[in-house]
Each structure stands twice: as C-alpha cells, then as structure tokens.
C-alpha cells in the first residue's frame, strides 16, 4: 500500500467524519455549550478567588483563568464523541463496508483522529473568540493564540486516539461514552477548574501528578503570562506524547481486530 493512497484515504475519511460530526448537532452541541456554561457559572460563583491578592500572579481575571479549562473540557468532550462515531461504524457495519474496499486500514483510524483535530481547531477558535468578546485577553498575543489552537488539536489527537482505541477494542459506542466520566474526574482532579496553588493536602498531590494539570497550566500560561518556552513544553509536548502512545494503542487495537476476523 503506497503512502500516497494512505494520505488520500485518510483525507477523505477525515472529511467524511467531519461531515458526520457536523450533521449530528445533538452530539456536537454539548461539547460547545457545556464548557462555556461552566465557565460562566464559575465566573459567577468562584470569581471571589480572584479577589485574593496572590491571584494576580495566576491570571489577570477569573475569566482569563477559565479559558484553558473550558477549552480542555470542550476538546476532550468532542473528541470522545468523535471516537464514539467510530464505534458506531463498527457496530452498524460501515466499518465492514470499508474493510471490503481496498482502503488503507490505518486510514480508518487516522481519519477519525483527523476529524477530531479539525473540530478542535474550529472549537478552540470559537471559544477564544467568545472569551475575547467577553473581555478576556491573550497575554502572549497571536503566538499564544496559535499555541492554544495547536494545543487543542494535539489534545484532540491524544483523546480521540485513546477513545478510538477503546472504540475499536470494544466496538461499542456505549463503552466509549461510558469512559468519559473517568476523563471528567481526571479533569476535576487537575487545575482545569481551580488553581493548583490554592489546593491543599492529597488534592494538591493528585493534581500535581495529573498530567492534565500541566497541559492546562501550559495553556493558561499562553493566556496569562509572558511568552515562555515552558508553555509550549507543557501545552504541546505532553498531549503530543500521549497522542503518540494513544495512536500506538489505536493501531494495535485495529490490528488485533483485523487479525481476529
């Protein structure tokens, strides 16, 4: 199989998946609405922490602080849902239809991941536009904007990779959706919604160990701090590392499923 056709197949399957996402507004809308809703709720109820004198070192405003958490939440949510579509393909037989064609096998997986990334780029852009309209500002300017968009795309790659691996393994959309609460828990045990500096005891320990905290803090860096290489390391490299492991997991699941035919 030539790499040319692999790229072409991935591209057309990405386009198909993106269309599929856009044509299921009921599945896509929550990943846009909920994070923004939580951010609005947070601004209303937690904004008192922004009155603490040391908060200025974290972010200029609670709104600015909330951006990264909202992006991470939205991207993880949408990427899980994208992987759910892959499980639906397997359950309903479209997957088998693809297998009957000379499609490059890996493109079936990569097309899904591609669509999650495309959606994430759009999503991060929309989120930032909304936050900026409500008065948030990106301290690192255009570079930070790009930093956040790329971070969102990499996070989408990592999350959709993990969940697609699960989708291929299980062939069940329910299993994929059922795994999401775990991701949500991971988010609550990170600095996505509450600054790590203000946590205490085991909560702070867990959050410090949680890679999600570092991704979020890298992204918060783009929003709230002067440009710094550390921001790229945390917001890009961590998701990228997870993404590579996730793709390996996804490909292994795919090969296993194909070998078991």
């Amino acid at each position, binding site marked *: *199989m030539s790499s040319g*056709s692999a790229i*072409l*197949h991935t591209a*057309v*399957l990405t386009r*198909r998946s993106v*269309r*599929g996402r856009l*044509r*299921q507004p009921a599945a896509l809308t929550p990943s846009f609405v909920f994070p923004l809703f939580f951010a609005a709720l947070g601004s209303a109820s937690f904004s008192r922490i922004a009155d603490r004198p040391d908060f200025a070192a974290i972010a200029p405003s609670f709104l600015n602080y909330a951006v990264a958490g909202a992006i991470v939440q939205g991207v993880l949510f949408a990427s899980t849902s994208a992987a759910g579509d892959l499980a639906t*393909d397997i359950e*309903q*037989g*479209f997957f*088998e*239809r*693809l*297998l*009957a*064609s*000379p*499609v490059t096998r890996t493109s079936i997986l990569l097309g899904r991941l591609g669509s999650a990334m495309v959606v994430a780029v759009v999503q991060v852009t929309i989120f930032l536009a909304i936050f900026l309209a409500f008065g948030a500002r990106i301290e690192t300017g255009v570079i930070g904007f790009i930093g956040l968009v790329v971070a969102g795309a990499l996070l989408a790659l990592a999350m959709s990779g993990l969940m697609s691996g699960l989708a291929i393994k299980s062939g069940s959309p329910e299993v994929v959706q059922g795994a999401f609460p775990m991701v949500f828990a991971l988010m609550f045990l990170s600095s996505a919604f509450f600054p790590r500096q203000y946590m205490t005891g085991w909560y702070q320990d867990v959050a410090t160990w949680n890679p999600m905290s570092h991704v979020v803090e890298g992204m918060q860096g783009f929003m709230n701090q002067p440009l710094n290489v550390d921001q790229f390391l945390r917001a890009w490299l961590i998701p990228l590392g997870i993404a590579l492991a996730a793709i390996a997991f996804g490909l292994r699941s795919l090969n296993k499923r194909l070998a078991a*035919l």
Partner: protein
Amino acid sequence: MLPGPCRMAPSTFVTERLSRLARPGQEFVECNIVTTSPSAPIVATGLVRHFGSGDSLVRAVDGVDLQVEAGEIFGFLGPNGAGKSTTVRVLTTLLKPSAGSATVAGFDVATQADKVRRAIGVALQDAAIDPLMTGRELLDLQSVLYGIPKSVATKRGPELLERVGLTAAADRRVGTYSGGMRRRLDLALSLVHEPSVLFLDEPTTGLDPMSRLTLWEEVRRLNREGTTVLLTTQYLEEADQLADRIAIIDHGKIVRQGVPRDLKAQVGSPTLFIDVDGEHVDMARGILERFGDLRPTSEGKLGVGLAQGAEAVASVIRTLDEAGVHVRHLELNEPSLDDVFAEATGYRLEGADQ
C-alpha cells in the same frame, strides 16, 4: 485483471506434473486440483469457517467446494443460519478461512486479499450505509477508496445513480432512504470500480415484489455486460428465476449443486400434497406410501412423490376415498427447487404450497 493465459498457467502446470507422475497404463485419479480450473472467477476448495471454540464451536461453513464460472449468475440458496453470509464474507476477504482455500478473480482470498478486493464488488447483507451521508457523497468516497481518477468518477457516479434510479435522491441523506433505495445504492456502490465479480448477499430480502423484480433486472443486465455474479438468497423462486446454477447450503454444507432444471429433473416425480383430518393421517400415510416415497411437508400435511407420475393422482384419490379418508385439500406440484431442497435436507425451506 490478469490476462487469461497467465491465469491458465497453474492448471497446465498441474496437469503436466500429474501426467509425469502417472506411469504408463495408470489412470488419472479424479482430484480437486484437476477438476477446479483456476481460471474460474470463484473457486473454493474445502472451505471451512468456525466461530468460537470448545462447546460453543459453530461450524458456520463446514467444507464448501464451489466453482463459479465466468459470466454466470450463481445462486447460493439456504435457510437462515445456513452459512451463506459467512461463505460470502470469506470469499470477499472479510473473514479468514479456518481451513481450506479459495481464489476469487484468480487471487487467493487469504494471501492476496487486497488484489481480491480491487477485483470484486460487494454488497453485504447487513453492512449499514452511513445514514448521515448522501448517496452522492458515498459514491465519491467509494471512488477514492478504489483509486478511481476523479475525471472518471465524476462521469461514472451520476451514471450509476441514474442506473439504479437514485438521481433525484442523490443529494439526500441515506438516513431518509427507503429499504429498497438503500439496496439500490448499495448495488451502485459495489459497481464504482466496474468489478468483474460481484457478490450480493441477500440483495432482495425485505424488498417488495416490485423492487425485487427491478433488482433482478439490474442483476441480469450486469450479467449480460459480462459480470460474474454470486448472490445468496432464501427465496427458491429467486434462485430458480435468476441463477444459471445454484448451490443449496444447509448447516454449512453444500447439499446440492447444479443447474436448477437438472436438479429438478433429478427429483423426477411430481409431488402430491394432501391435507386430511387428524384421525385419518396414519391411514392416509399408509396409502400414499404405496404410490411412491413420502416427502417432507410443512406442518399438518402429507406429501408423496408419485412414482408413476401425475396420472397416478386419480388412483390415489380413489384409494383414499374407498378407505373412507376425507381429503380436505389436494395439490399436485411439478418438481421444484423446493423438492430438491426437501430431498437434500429432509425439510422444506418455505411452505410446501408455495
């Protein structure tokens, strides 16, 4: 496609080898290698596919030998769970054989799967079509996956849609299509790369009689244009009407194979079905037995193959009447595929009075 002479090569090779092995005066032993020509578009030899293991082992396909010749419509007939889809899945590279081998379009399904896929068209029984995409989008996708140049695809796509009568619905999402429309789209999708061999798994199940006839017509047309077709069906009539040759499969084994006319002729005698009151069943059965072999029937009926042909009906009735057996219903059927099936399996596929 491989050119003819190249595909003939193994056969010549094998024959030569065998003739060298044979000593003067020795006769050839009939064997599979010699009788199955590798040039046939579909050849299966001792094909086996199991599922599960131990106590839950299912022998879905249990030693199938098949040969479909170029230009044929081959009907694969069998009841639910007989192993039709499993056979098709193995032949179309979607399942690996547990044992045995098969070549399709000259390529081995296990070791040359990708070549097989490029040569064949497949419409699976239960592979859903993505309901969120339109017919046209699916055709475009399929064209790219089969490596068809865009210039060709933009011409062929609309042609295919026209051909299956979906031009008007081409830009609607498949989710809004009726069952018949989906089947027709499915057929169009399987044709984008102009395959030489077409597999249709129960293409007409669930279709109304009108749609079924339309699909038959389309299959015949494709066949006239040179496509070899293997189609599975649960309908005797479909196999009878559409197929040049059929194989009857039951419990994973092929129990009859041949031209429908010949198979029916082998059954020979017509079948007389009668319906009698419950208390007379045993007596009636005894009488019928004098006129020929009893044949399987659907529930509550008796059937006999009239050894003396249709003329014997009068004497059967007379004898039953003299014995005081009241015949409620009577039917004489010329040998049908139903009889072929019944004779081969011991039960009837559809109601005997079908």
